[in-house]
């Protein structure tokens, strides 16, 4: 059994905490411990209370405290639960994202906002089943935003995020384990590069973390029908310049772009990608699938009707190719 995403991330943080004796983690109730096979990670027992600190239900502190620490050169990670994604939004916006610029380069926030994301889960309802919120962070100047889909990417991106001099929002969706094995040693995945998951020639499909499993299924199904889809996982939303290069190259080849999103439709992550493609590749045919502009209902009957799944992706791809 390969390492799952949670273990991979903690392993990445553990390595960095060993490497940097100041690196500190604030969290609320998501204990920083995990087991994989016979290996156990427990950051609280390994690094002690001061460097692995559980906090009150106070995301303003978890994130603002980490910002204050990082301002004096103590790099830190703020881990917040999924229903609180936007409690620190103002802090990230007016401070983490702006102060380096406002101080002419003096203020630095070597911090990571490690945001648990929920995704569209049944029996939870709106407040506990949201997705796609990362685009609100990605629109803020001065922030980097990563959204890994595999344990391998997650560990590598977490380490890159920690080593980065700028504030990074690291979004962790609950994801099925997939992709390459995760090495025990530290390694980095560069911030700013997309991954081509499947190569193809007929249509470009773009989607990330919560949608990757559905897209992968659709790509396989399309193949059976003789359609060759290129599936690109952007892996991050800011900065987007490097990420767009393979997407634009792909669309130049296929002439068609289908995006698929668990987030809501309007102003979503893929809107920006489509807008950039439309500017760069005139004549492109585009189609965007997304959750409606509604909260997620708790009853699975309603929820499933609204979610994008493999069948819907497959059907949309075929329509885009046909008409």
């Amino acid at each position: 059994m390969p390492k799952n995403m949670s273990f991979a991330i903690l392993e990445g943080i553990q390595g960095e905490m060993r490497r940097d004796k100041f690196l500190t983690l604030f969290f609320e109730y998501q204990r920083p411990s995990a087991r994989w096979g016979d290996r156990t990670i427990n950051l609280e027992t390994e690094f002690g209370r001061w460097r692995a600190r559980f906090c009150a239900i106070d995301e303003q502190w978890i994130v603002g405290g980490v910002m204050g620490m990082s301002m004096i050169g103590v790099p830190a990670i703020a881990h917040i639960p999924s229903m609180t994604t936007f409690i620190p939004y103002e802090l990230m916006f007016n401070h983490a994202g702006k102060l380096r610029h406002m101080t002419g380069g003096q203020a630095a926030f070597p911090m990571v906002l490690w945001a648990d994301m929920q995704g569209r889960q049944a029996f939870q309802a709106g407040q506990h089943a949201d997705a796609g919120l990362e685009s609100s962070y990605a629109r803020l100047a001065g922030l980097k935003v990563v959204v890994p889909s595999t344990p391998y990417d997650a560990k590598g991106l977490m380490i890159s995020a920690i080593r980065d001099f700028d504030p990074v929002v690291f979004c962790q969706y609950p994801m099925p384990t997939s992709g390459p094995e995760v090495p025990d040693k530290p390694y980095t995945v560069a911030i700013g590069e997309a991954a081509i998951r499947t190569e193809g020639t007929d249509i470009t499909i773009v989607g990330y973390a919560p949608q990757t499993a559905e897209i992968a299924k659709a790509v396989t199904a399309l193949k059976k029908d003789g359609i060759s889809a290129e599936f690109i996982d952007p892996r991050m939303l800011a900065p987007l310049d490097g990420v767009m290069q393979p997407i634009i190259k792909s669309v130049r080849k296929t002439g068609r772009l289908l995006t698929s999103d668990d987030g809501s439709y309007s102003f979503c992550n893929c809107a920006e990608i489509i807008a950039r493609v439309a500017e760069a590749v005139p004549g492109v045919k585009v189609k965007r699938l997304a959750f409606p502009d509604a909260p997620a209902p708790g009853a699975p009957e309603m929820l499933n009707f609204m979610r994008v799944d493999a069948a819907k992706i497959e059907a949309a791809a075929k329509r885009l190719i046909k008409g």
Partner: protein
Amino acid sequence: MNERTINREVSSIREDITAKRKAATAAVSRRTFVKRVSAIGAGTAVLSRVPTRPTKAQYGPPHADGLPAQQLTAMFTDMVKIRQWESKIKDLILKGGFRGVAHLYVGQEAVAVGVCSALRKDDYIASNHRGHGHLIAKGGDLKLMLAEITHKAAGYCKGYGGSLHITDVNLGILGMNGIVGASHLFAAGAAYGIKVKGTDQVAVSFGGDGSIQGNFFSSAANSAAAWKLPWIGVIENNAFQIWVRASDVYATPDLAQRAAGYGIEGRVVDGNDVLAVYGVAKQAVEKARSGGGPTLIECKTYRWYDHYGVAGARTGGDGAFGLGYRSDRELRDWMAKDPISRFRKFLVSEKVLTEAGADEITAEVRKAVEEAATFAEAQPVPKPEDGLLHVFAQGAVPLHTA
């Protein structure tokens, strides 16, 4: 007639009814009352008090004096309702295939019932994630609640919201809410609205020990203090925030102490003593109703189950054992202080109830709970396309998945 006008009409009709009901209750209260209630409460009611603002009643809940047997029985019944309804949910979850989730309230019944018994039907409550008890105490319908937490179309929220979001605006229940602390802010806002409307309603918020930090509590407390809003903040200190002990993240042993910083009266009460809670709540409610401003009430209590779900629990038995973050002995200690047995014993010794009468109430409640479960089970699930409704007051949002 638009929605807002309807709301207003409803609320003025409600006020009418309440006034009549109030007059009736007052009459009863003078007819049959229990004498020694306040003496009994004396030893247990106020554990410790915030030193900054002396209140008149140093000991005991004088308002429990004069409580009619009928109301005492109703309070007992409500506590049993909460216990039985939640135990049913627990059993259903343990059985498997349950269409929902739950944060069980069992063990804290005295808080919900003590507070809500001090309220009128037209008073408002704002609740949190652990709110089934608050709702039942405020008059919530067991059937509609069960249908809701199993996400059926007949539920309170038509299956959209589930356990964490049950709401009944007609009962003044502004809703459970999944975001810790939000209840306080909304209740304080409602209290401001009451001032604008010029009624003598009050607004109560329930929150855990975890709800006094974060963004919302401070805004509620400061505003309620500055303008003497009819707001009562109830803090159910059950020692834990999931598995984090309150004492590890707060420097003061009494959370009600936070009140003093805002210029609010803070009270600490034994949250397993329903009459003690009632007494403190009643004082706070009367003060708020008559323009005297807010109160913060900390109720020391304990939850018998895990934060969420049924880990460590078993069918047909109370409590969740073997949880890593607390000792079984601590739980047993609190179970020995069971607010329901304690109140039952008191009612029997006071001859408000006989043992047989208490058993009968329990059996009746159990029957009602079974009926609720049968009702919920039989209800249809929501129609898929209805997920697009109720985003706005009118119309459906477009579907973008095709």
